[in-house]
């Protein structure tokens, strides 16, 4: 019976999950941005190729 009240560590839990979702969202956003940029590059290059 060492612990009568569980210590309140919920702020750490929130920090942890925020980090998880933050990093994941940033990574997904980077994937999306890179995809868009590449598509744009592809269009430009295909135009150049046709000339």
């Amino acid at each position, binding site marked *: 019976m060492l*612990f009568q009240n*569980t*210590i*309140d*560590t*919920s702020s*750490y*839990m929130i*920090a*942890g*999950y925020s*980090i*998880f979702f933050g*990093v*994941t969202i940033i*990574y997904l956003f980077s*994937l999306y941005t*890179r*995809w868009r940029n*590449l*598509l744009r*590059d*592809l269009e430009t*290059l*295909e135009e*150049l*190729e046709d000339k």
Partner: protein
Amino acid sequence: MKTKPSALKALDIASLILLAVATYLALVFAPTERVMGDVQRVFYFHVATAWVGLLGFVAAGVTGIIYLRTQDLKWDLVEQAAVEISLVFFFITIILGSIWARPIWNTWWTWDPRLTSASIVELIYLAYLMLRQGIEDPDRRARFGAVYTLVGAISVPITFLSIRLFRTIHPVVIGNESSAAEGGFAMTGDMKIAFFFALFAFTIIFIDLFWNRIRLGHLQQKVEQLKLKVMD
């Protein structure tokens, strides 16, 4: 190439749903751990992201070997995707591990064998990226990348065992507690559900991200080849 295959679209949706469910299970469904409190919930995603990191790590090593055998640049592409995903997810693992350690053992870092090995993997990936950046020729870049992921894939497990051996012979006070506590809180049935579901969900998430990232790699390769062609 530009339209996403419907299987992948379905996988995207499935991943999002699974992630949502896993989050619910971890944050709401699982009971609060009696000793550590809510921060223990971080553990479910800490292990799940480590699992994804590990999948990527193994995939990188294996595709490295396959590239060396086949000399087909498609495999180099896959290897880069694996490294990138593993890099991101081990990063999350390490931070979550640190956040978990802080309130429980009053330290930001425990030099626990698994966390330390994950950090070493991150350093190897950074070295990998720097190595590739310093090489112009795509074929040489791919070959060197493959050799290095192979060398890394063999070295890291040995490093992990060395650290663990080191810790059993020289137990560090904080470390002992943490290595006991990694499995040292008894998981109740509900916790196990959250835990194993997270592992399952993140496996699907890994496959989804991997596939998406490989598609990105293909597009990148196409653009580069076209660039070379047009610039001539």
